[in-house]
C-alpha cells in the first residue's frame, strides 16, 4: 500500500524528514506518533503528493508519487481520504455541500451522491446537521464532517492528521472509535497524533517519529523494508 525508501525532506537547513524508510500493508492501522515538529504532517503530505521529497522514493498503491506528474496527482488523491490538521471546511456552505464536493469532482450522479453523503454523515453521526452551515458547527462536529468528507468517496487509504487536536477527551475518544470502525470496514488508516490517550485507544502499530527520523516501530517487520 505505502512504501517509503530513504525519504528526506529539507526546508532550508531544517530537515523535516531524514532518511525515513518503512512500509504499510493494505488493511493496516498505523499510528504516527511524535512530538510537535517531529515531521508528522510533512510525512503525510509527502505521501499525499502535496510535498515532493528531496531524496528517496515513495510508492503509494504502486505509483511513484515523487515522480508523478502534477496533473496525475488529483487522481491519486481520489483514492485516498485526507483529514487535515486544521480541519478545513467551507464555512459558508452547508455540511451537505461540503461533504458532496469530492463526489462532484469525480462526476458522481446526483442520486448516488446523495445516498453516499447520507451514509458518510451517518457513519460519523452528524446526519441531522446536513443543512447547517459548516461554520456554525462545534469543533467536534466540524472534525466529524471532515472525516465524512474524507470517506465519502470510499478511499482505500485514510490519512488523518491530528484529528483530535482541538477536542476534549470525550470527543477525542469518539473520534478514535470512529476511526477504528472505518478501519474495521476495510480502510487502511494512517493516523498522526501526539495524544497518548488516542494512541492507546487505537490499538494499532505505532511508528515513532522524532526530529524527522523513525526512532521506533512497534511492528517487527519494519527492519525488513
Amino acid at each position: 500500500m505505502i512504501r517509503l525508501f530513504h525519504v528526506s525532506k529539507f526546508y532550508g537547513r531544517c530537515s523535516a524528514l531524514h532518511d525515513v524508510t518503512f512500509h504499510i500493508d493494505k488493511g493496516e492501522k498505523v499510528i504516527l506518533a511524535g512530538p510537535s515538529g517531529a515531521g508528522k504532517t510533512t510525512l503525510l503530505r509527502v505521501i499525499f503528493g502535496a510535498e515532493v521529497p528531496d531524496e528517496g522514493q515513495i510508492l503509494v498503491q504502486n505509483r511513484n508519487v515523487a515522480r508523478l506528474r502534477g496533473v496525475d496527482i488529483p487522481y491519486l488523491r481520489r483514492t485516498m481520504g485526507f483529514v487535515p490538521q486544521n480541519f478545513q471546511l467551507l464555512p459558508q456552505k452547508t455540511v451537505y455541500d461540503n461533504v458532496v464536493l469530492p463526489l462532484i469532482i469525480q462526476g458522481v450522479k446526483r442520486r448516488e451522491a446523495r445516498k453516499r453523503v447520507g451514509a458518510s454523515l451517518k457513519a460519523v453521526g452528524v446526519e441531522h446537521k446536513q443543512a447547517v452551515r459548516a461554520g456554525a458547527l462545534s469543533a467536534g462536529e466540524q472534525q466529524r464532517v471532515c472525516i465524512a468528507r474524507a470517506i465519502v468517496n470510499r478511499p482505500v487509504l485514510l490519512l488523518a492528521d491530528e484529528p483530535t487536536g482541538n477536542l476534549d477527551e470525550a470527543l477525542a475518544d469518539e473520534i478514535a472509535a470512529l476511526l477504528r470502525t472505518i478501519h474495521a470496514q476495510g480502510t487502511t488508516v494512517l493516523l498522526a497524533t501526539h495524544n497518548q490517550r488516542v494512541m492507546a485507544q487505537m490499538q494499532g502499530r505505532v511508528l515513532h517519529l522524532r526530529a524527522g527520523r523513525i526512532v521506533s516501530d512497534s511492528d517487527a517487520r519494519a527492519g525488513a523494508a
Partner: protein
Amino acid sequence: MMRAWYLVREALTNLRVYRGSVAIGIVTTAFALACFGVFLLLYLNLHNLAGSLQRGIDVVVYLNPDAPEQTVAEVRRRLREEPAAVTVSVVSKAQALREFRDAFPDDALFLGEMGDNPLPVSFVVTVSPGFQTPESVSAFAERVEGFPGVAHVRYHQDWIDTLALVVSYFEFGAVVIGVILAVATVTIVGNTVHLSLQARREEIEILRLIGATGRFIAVPHVIEGAMLGAVGGGLALALLKGAFEFLRFELYASGWFDGLERILTFFPDPVSLLLVLAGMALGCGGSVFSIMGLIKTRQG
C-alpha cells in the same frame, strides 16, 4: 450534470461576491468594446458609402461640340465594343439643352439667346461590376479619351480614390486600436478574475485536497470571465445602438445631408453577435491569463 451546475454556481457566486470589481470590469470592457465599435461603425458606413458610390459609377464621355454625325456613330460603336461598358446611352444636343434648362432655369435665358446650341453630344456609360475598381475605371477613361472626336471624359475618380484611401486608413486604424483595446480588456478582466481567485484561495486549497484537477478549479473562473466579457459586450452594443439612433435622429432633424440618415447603417445582426462574442472571448482570455499557473502547479 451536477458537476456542470456546481461550476456555474461557483462562477455566479464569484461574480456576486465581487460585484464591485465585477462592475468595474464590465464597464471597462464595455467602454473598450464601444470604442472599438464606434470605429467599426465608421468604417462600415464609409465602406458602404464607397461601395454605393462605386456601384453608381457612370462615366460621361463628352464629344467635341462640332463633331459630325459620323463621329458620333463611330464613338458610340467603339464604346459598345468596350468590355467595361454595360450600357451606353446618348444624350443629344437638344436633350442636353433641356436638362441644362431644368437644372439652371435662371441661366437658360442667356443660353437661349445664343441661338446655336453650344452643348456637346455626350454618352453616359455604366461601368460593368467587374470593372468598378478605381484602377480599371481610370484605365477605361484614359482609353476613351484617346478616341477621335472625344473632348473629355468625366467621372468621380478623385472622390472615389480619396474615399478608398480613407477606408484603407480606417482598416489599419481598426487593427491597431482593436489590438490595444483587446490587450486592455484582457488585462482588466484578468485583474477581476485574479481578485476572486485570491479570495477563493482557501477553497482552492480544499479542492486540491480532495482531488480536484487544476482544470476543475479553473473552469468557474473562465466562466466568470466569459460572463463578464459577454455582459460588457452586450452593454457596449446597447451604448452604440443608443448613440447611433440618437445621432441619426439628430441628423434627420437638422436637415443637413438630406437622405444621409437613410444610408447610415448599424451593424448587421451577425456583427452585433460577433461583438458580444468578442467580449466573451476577451473575458475568457483574461481569466485564462490569470489562472494559467493554477492549472500547472502541483498543489496550489
